[in-house]
């Protein structure tokens, strides 16, 4: 029985890591797609849209933290907190745009027929489900096993963390140019607009 457990644990630990990496790759892809829509198609993000991006980056932080600290589940907890934050903000914006009113169109264009705040609701629920599934399937941390994982997974984790850091830096610069030091109720880039 103990021999079987020794065989199963590396497999479970590897699958656990792969699930976390899949979640991180999905988040990075969503954030990259949002940036492409902003810079290539001119979709200026609203304040709540930026706060949803912020919550997704918070989830990325938690997942990176979890991938790099196998002796604790703190990273997964941080990721789950930010997934709840993402859910609260996106549900708020979805309810806000539910009712058409003068002077306020639905923010952003639809992707596959679904608007972006609604996509954020789906993403938040998927993240929470992902954290729940990995805890249910793979259980408690296994430090001795995780430390022996392949160098390729370590390199992939490093690359993903670096990419998330890079797109966060781009988003920070973009936010400064768009919002200045204000709360970001803008329809363009504040620092690029000519003074009146």
């Amino acid at each position, binding site marked *: 029985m103990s021999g079987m457990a020794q065989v199963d644990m590396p497999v479970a630990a590897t699958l656990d890591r792969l699930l976390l990496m899949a979640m991180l790759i999905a988040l990075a892809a969503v954030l990259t797609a949002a940036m492409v829509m902003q810079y290539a198609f001119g979709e200026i993000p609203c*304040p709540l849209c930026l706060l949803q991006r912020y919550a997704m980056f918070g989830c990325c932080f938690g997942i990176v933290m979890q991938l790099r600290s196998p002796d604790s589940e703190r990273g997964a907890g941080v990721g789950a907190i930010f997934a709840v934050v993402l859910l609260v903000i996106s549900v708020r914006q979805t309810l*806000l745009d539910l009712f058409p009113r003068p002077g306020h169109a639905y923010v952003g264009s639809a992707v596959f027929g679904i608007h972006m705040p609604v996509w954020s609701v789906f993403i938040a629920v998927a993240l929470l489900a992902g954290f729940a599934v990995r805890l249910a399937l793979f259980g408690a941390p296994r430090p001795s096993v995780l430390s022996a994982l392949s160098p390729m997974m370590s390199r992939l984790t490093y690359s993903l963390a670096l990419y998330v850091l890079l797109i966060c830096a781009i988003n920070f610069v973009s936010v400064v140019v768009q919002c200045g030091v*204000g709360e970001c109720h803008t329809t363009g880039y504040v620092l690029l607009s000519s003074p009146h």
Partner: protein
Amino acid sequence: MMAAVFAALLVALAFEFAGYGRIAVACLLLSFGLGTWLFLWEIYSADYGFRMPWLEL
């Protein structure tokens, strides 16, 4: 204010990437506080807030 939220988040990610976990979590907490404050302001601001009168009973 939005820039401050993202600045604190960027610093947190940079410290986490560099291996300074405790400082990273401290910066993330600062970012979380600023983000929460900004979200509540967005909801409740009388002038600029995104209120939902159709849901108020």
